[in-house]
């Protein structure tokens, strides 16, 4: 049988019932090849007749597959659209309620505020129609900045230790502990702060009253975000080739000099990413901070008034408030559509945008690493 005739019938069917090559896969193929080959001769009398390709079970099988594919595609697509829609929807909702504070919108109970009397004023007295949110912005930035100042060096140095110094058993143990710590609910950290850390420093030389304020909040936040920073910086240091370390030490660096002058700079983009992710987690945290910060919207005024202690102690131990803590405190107690309520939404919007900026920053830093 000439090869050409087989090629002329792609479905593998020979008019006379004799066939040689079967391009069809699947079960049919195996059952056919199980028949002893007979050198291309035409004696195929006992073989089953192969159905036309379009009628074969394999074909029908693949058609149902394609249908299932299409449904799956649709399902995946709609799920992702749902997520995108939710995120967009939340933004829209926040924006529409938040921006209503500044525009005379129908159904608004209060007056339209001026941007400057919200963002540039430190006077928060909603019942007297004064809505300066500067204390909360400053509070959020202050407490997260302070937390990062504690957590970033501690986390990065722990990362160096785990990746480059610790013996294998300790490395494994530490990594697992860090992963566990990341998963602890923030309220647990809050309880720890409220019942252990606060009493520890209250009524001491540090704070003559209950010690609520930035210091304790920042410490609690730092403890919360250290595991994240440790995890990510351990990865960063482990991904560095050991030739860098060896190269530095071969030039006469001490261990510490190699870490400080070569390894940390080499890992810098990923360390920055770790810090920013930690910052993101800290700035959005409400529960733990609310339990220890003292929730005093008038903290800036209070700090200005009291002059009995050193300024930095005053700054650290004056009961204060942040964007998140104020939202948690007040949002349930305000009427929808009131100016007060709208301003709280504006604060939510601000938080949303801040977090967004941080996430975009991490992505940029991550890309900088590859370049």
């Amino acid at each position, binding site marked *: 049988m000439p090869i050409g005739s087989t090629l002329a019938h792609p479905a593998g069917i020979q008019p006379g019932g004799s066939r040689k090559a079967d391009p069809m896969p699947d079960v049919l193929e195996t059952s056919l090849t199980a028949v002893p080959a007979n050198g291309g001769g035409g004696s195929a009398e006992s073989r089953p007749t192969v159905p036309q390709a379009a009628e074969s079970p394999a074909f029908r099988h693949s058609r149902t597959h394609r249908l299932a594919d299409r449904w799956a595609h649709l399902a995946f697509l709609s799920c992702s659209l749902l997520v995108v829609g939710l995120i967009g929807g939340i933004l829209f909702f926040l924006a529409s309620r938040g921006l209503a504070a500044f525009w005379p919108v129908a159904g608004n109970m209060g007056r339209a505020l001026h941007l400057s009397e919200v963002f540039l004023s430190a006077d928060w007295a909603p019942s007297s129609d004064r809505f300066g949110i500067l204390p909360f912005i400053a509070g959020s930035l202050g407490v997260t900045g302070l937390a990062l100042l504690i957590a970033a060096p501690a986390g990065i140095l722990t990362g160096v230790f785990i990746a480059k110094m610790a013996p294998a058993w300790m490395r494994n143990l530490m990594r697992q502990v860090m992963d566990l710590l990341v998963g602890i609910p923030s309220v647990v950290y809050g309880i720890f702060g409220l019942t252990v850390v606060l009493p520890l420093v209250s009524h001491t030389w540090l704070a003559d009253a209950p010690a609520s304020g930035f210091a304790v909040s920042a410490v609690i936040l730092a403890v919360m975000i250290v595991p994240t920073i440790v995890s990510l910086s351990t990865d960063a240091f482990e991904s560095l080739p050991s*030739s860098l370390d*060896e*190269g530095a030490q*071969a030039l006469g*660096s*001490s261990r510490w000099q190699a870490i400080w002058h070569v390894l940390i700079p*080499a890992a810098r983009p990923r360390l920055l990413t770790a810090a920013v992710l930690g910052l993101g987690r800290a700035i959005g945290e409400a529960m733990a901070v609310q339990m220890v910060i003292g929730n005093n919207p008038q903290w800036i005024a209070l700090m200005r008034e009291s002059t009995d202690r050193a300024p930095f102690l005053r700054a650290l131990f004056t009961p204060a408030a942040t964007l998140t803590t104020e939202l948690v405190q007040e949002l349930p107690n305000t009427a929808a559509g009131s100016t007060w309520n709208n301003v709280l939404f504006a604060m939510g919007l601000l938080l949303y945008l801040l977090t967004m900026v941080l996430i975009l920053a991490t992505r940029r830093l991550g890309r900088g690493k590859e370049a």
Partner: protein
Amino acid sequence: MLIPTVPETKPIKLSVRNMAFSYGEKKVLDGLSLDIHAERVTAIIGPSGCGKSTFLKCFNRIHEVSSAVNVSGDMLMDGVDIYRGGIDEVDLRRRVGMVFQKPNPFPKSIYENVAFGPRLFGVSDRTSLDGIVEDALRKAALWDEVKDRLKESATGMSGGQQQRLCIARALAVNPEVLLMDEPCSALDPIATAKIEDLIGELKENLTIVIVTHNMQQAARVSDYTAFFWLGKLVEMDLTERIFTTPRVQMTEDYITGRFG
């Protein structure tokens, strides 16, 4: 086995006597004795796993960075034991530079790579640093290629340039000995030729020990060749003699390609 008997005018720089080396329980080198002359190139050849790289790394104790090791016997530099003679390993590494198998420039600028060592040792004024950097880059035959882009990242250079940068970086601290661990194994033939030329120039005032798996390279660049097998020194002699009239059959079998 202390074989070289030709009139050698250069003093002995490194001297190894009955040296053994082990990682934990595993013995890698045993009963090694040999001398390395100043301002000469000594090549160490042998099949993979014969311990030649390990031996090289004993001269700057760099293996101590990553694992617990045990060295016995004597390893002397200028007559002082580098393990027990009260030499700090950080000082030792300043005197004994190293170039690794794969180029390992730091992810910093070309300038900062070369200035790294001098900075460690307290050189901080700009003029001295500039001088040291230029000098080292010239010695490494890299100056003309990079003088206009010293501020650019070293990781953007070609492999051959990176390796010469690593040589410049090692030279910048003015070492007495330069250890080279298969320095051309990751390079193309042209880059390899450049490094080999460089080795010839550098030995003017430097003791060079080079590990190589490439016997032609050993023949081209070295004055002495030591043949290692299974952690032992089989034969060491003038390179010329090793490659023409080796005295041990096994050496001949190895260099003629019968094993390894």
